[in-house]
């Protein structure tokens, strides 16, 4: 149905993007601003909240720490369906948006969300990471050889530090997978607002296990994918979406 005049009709969409290269030093809040500005540059009709200080209806799945890269980032954005030119596919919007963005942040996919889909942030359940070794710190061979035995442990106790206190915590239930991947280590962890295991904490535990002092800077972390859970399976956050059809 085409709606004319000033009325808006919300089109819920989900973007998958990557953040690689020097933009790894851009913080999460700045990435949000970056997208808001990019939408304006590309003249993409993003809907705004109502009220005194309207803000664009844009939300991100899971913040990425400074220094980390990713090829599995997601953001939900609501577009004004009446302003998306009839017949224009979201595929065209991808090109339009990428044309006004830095090379480091690139939209990989952009789809229409099913009306019943929950927002990305609340559905995140797990994430894959590739941990690479920065030269000059550890012998990576030791880590790669001992991945299996480290992962086989039934308990992984780490000291979790908060601002006020520190407490021991068993992170093993939140670690879903850990194995060598070429010269790097692949890990899958539980992620999301309820339970969240940061890859840094896994590597901290790995160092403890090997009897090495933990040096955060030694590990280069790259997020490969972010998942939601459907029944017992972890599936891509693009799951509840369809490709945008021409009208």
């Amino acid at each position, binding site marked *: 149905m085409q709606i004319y005049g000033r009325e808006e009709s919300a089109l819920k969409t989900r973007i998958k993007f990557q953040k690689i290269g020097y*933009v790894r030093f851009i*913080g999460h809040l700045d990435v949000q601003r970056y997208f808001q500005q990019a939408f304006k*540059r590309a003249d993409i009709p993003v809907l705004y909240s109502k009220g005194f200080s309207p803000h664009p209806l844009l939300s991100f799945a899971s913040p990425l720490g*400074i*220094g980390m890269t990713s090829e599995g980032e997601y953001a939900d954005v609501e577009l004004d369906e009446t302003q998306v030119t009839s017949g224009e596919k979201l595929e065209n919007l991808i090109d339009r948006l990428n044309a006004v*963005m*830095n*090379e*480091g942040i690139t939209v990989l996919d952009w789809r229409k969300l099913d009306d019943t889909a929950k927002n990305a942030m609340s559905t995140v359940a797990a994430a894959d990471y590739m941990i690479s070794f920065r030269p000059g710190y550890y012998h990576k061979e030791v880590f790669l050889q001992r991945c299996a035995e480290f992962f086989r442990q039934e308990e992984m106790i780490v000291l979790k530090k908060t601002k006020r206190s520190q407490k021991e915590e068993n992170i093993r239930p939140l670690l879903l997978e850990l194995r060598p991947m070429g010269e790097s280590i692949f890990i899958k962890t539980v992620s999301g607002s309820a339970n969240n295991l940061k890859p840094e904490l896994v590597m901290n535990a790995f160092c403890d296990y090997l009897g090495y002092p933990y040096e955060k*800077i030694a590990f280069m972390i790259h997020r490969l994918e972010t998942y939601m859970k459907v029944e017992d399976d972890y599936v891509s956050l693009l799951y509840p979406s369809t490709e945008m059809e021409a009208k």
Partner: protein
Amino acid sequence: MISNTMRELALTDEILMQIEKPARYIGGEVNSVVKNPDKVDIRFAMCFPDVYEIGMSHLGMKIIYDMLNRRDDIYCERVFSPWIDLHKKMKEENIPLFALESQDPLFLFDFLAITIQYEMCYTNILQILDLAQIGIFSKDRKEDAPIVIGGGPCTYNPEPLADFFDIFYIGEGETVYFELMDLYKEHKKNKTSRKEFLKAAAKIEGMYVPSLYDVSYKEDGTIDSFWPIEEGIPTTIKKQVEMNLGDTYYPKNPVVPFMKVTQDRVVLEIQRGCIRGCRFCQAGMIYRPTRERPLSMLKEYALDMLKNTGYDEISLSSLSSSDYSKLKELTEFLVEHCGEKKINIALPSLRIDAFSLDVMSKVQDVKKSSLTFAPEAGSQRMRNVINKGLTEEIILSGAEEAFKGGWKKVKLYFMLGLPTETEEDMAAIAKLCEKIAMTYYKMDAEYRNKTRVSVGASASFFIPKPFTPLQWAPMCELEDYSKKAYFVNDQMKAQHNRKSLSFKWHDAKTTVLEGILARGDRKVAKVIYDVYKKGCIYDAWTEFFDFDKWMEAMDENGLSIAFYTIRQRSLDEVFPWDFIDIGVTKNFLKREWEKAMKGEATPNCKQKCSGCGANIWKGGVCIENKN
């Protein structure tokens, strides 16, 4: 085009992960210019000597960046001061300062141009030169070191910095930069010496090469004479002015920072200069004559800049926006085009009247915003001395209009320590604030909605600046500034509506130092150097400002603070900046000083020409006035 994504950064991840806000140092922002450094003739580094967030907010730098990069043979890149944390690392690990775009060290560049916007950044300039590893003193610079150029308002008295710069560019950047660049290319091709190049550059109008001049002093420490030491070098340096602001360089694609910066919006400069002639204001004199940009240009640039940046706010920039003749048309245009796209409009430096209140109520949330008045002085007598043509009647009627329009917050700016100031003048500040509060409480209850008004006054201390009518004025002793502030504070507390009033004041120590540097001479250079060696940087940031170190260095160099600050200067004294010709004559400034002492006002440029001398450029308000 070169791929930007995988480019090497100058700093290692180890360092970038340890310091605050690494996004300050990586470059590669949207609209930043990418060129192959090997394919250009001139590598030009444009520096704002403060932290990234401040520097990236500066309009002048954006104009030069855009202008120089339009030429294929020049690559202009940006540099800012590394923050304290990175400064330490760079010193420890001997990392040379680099430009953001290519991440290459500055010592590879042909030019390092530094914009000098305020006196309190002088030690940051030394930090830049030091970290760049090119020699702090001009005389120590090697043949292949970049040519260090200074520009901006502080170069209207460049003398305290004379030892550190190779050239000062006096005037507006749009005018003779390309002439200088072409001269440099010639010099590079013919492989002439650095000295020869500087000598040739000194002959371009507006270029001041301090090493080609010498100064002698009288016994009392004032200047006896100042002269060029070589044949053919000009004795006066003429300020350069862009007279056609409708057809010149202005960036349509300004760089959009990743991180939040101070001025995080599209900035549209609507005019340059100011007709008002406030006697304390340096900008009001050095940017004469007042010149407007045409409305058609501003409309076009506003839309293009918003489109190319994606910003959600646009701000008009000028010294006094209300004096722009097409302001109504421009704001109407912006309201029409911006509202629907959720773009805010910021209108600073507006006079508060029915028109501006109407515009502001359309573009901002009245409940949240505050209105600003700048009476600068409390009493009419004092305002006449400084030629601030704002009367109590205008302020009170403006405030009343504003209160009726729903505003509940008013800010007022004042100066303390003005010449001829009495206790009565200072007490008048509190009285004026009280009258504003009374204006509010006297209104019908329907306007007030049972809420209190907030009248916030803030005072800075007056600092005499070169090329102003008050350049002869003595400053106060350090202790007197605080006494004045406490006096006003007590007066505020004695008012009936004291609960609606608040009062803040600036740091007195900063005032004294700024005063020394503003009217300083070449002798002060050694103090700046010594203070930097003692570890002072970021003096503009109160948390790092160490006044005692400065006083120590003044003392060690045998310089008297009183000489630069509280001394009464005679009308025939030769000032360190007298060799610069800003168009406005010293005779005019003297006449204005004398009128100030008598408390006589001078009409603004649109009302009547007062013969300041700026009409030699035959343009702007000087000719509009004659029509």
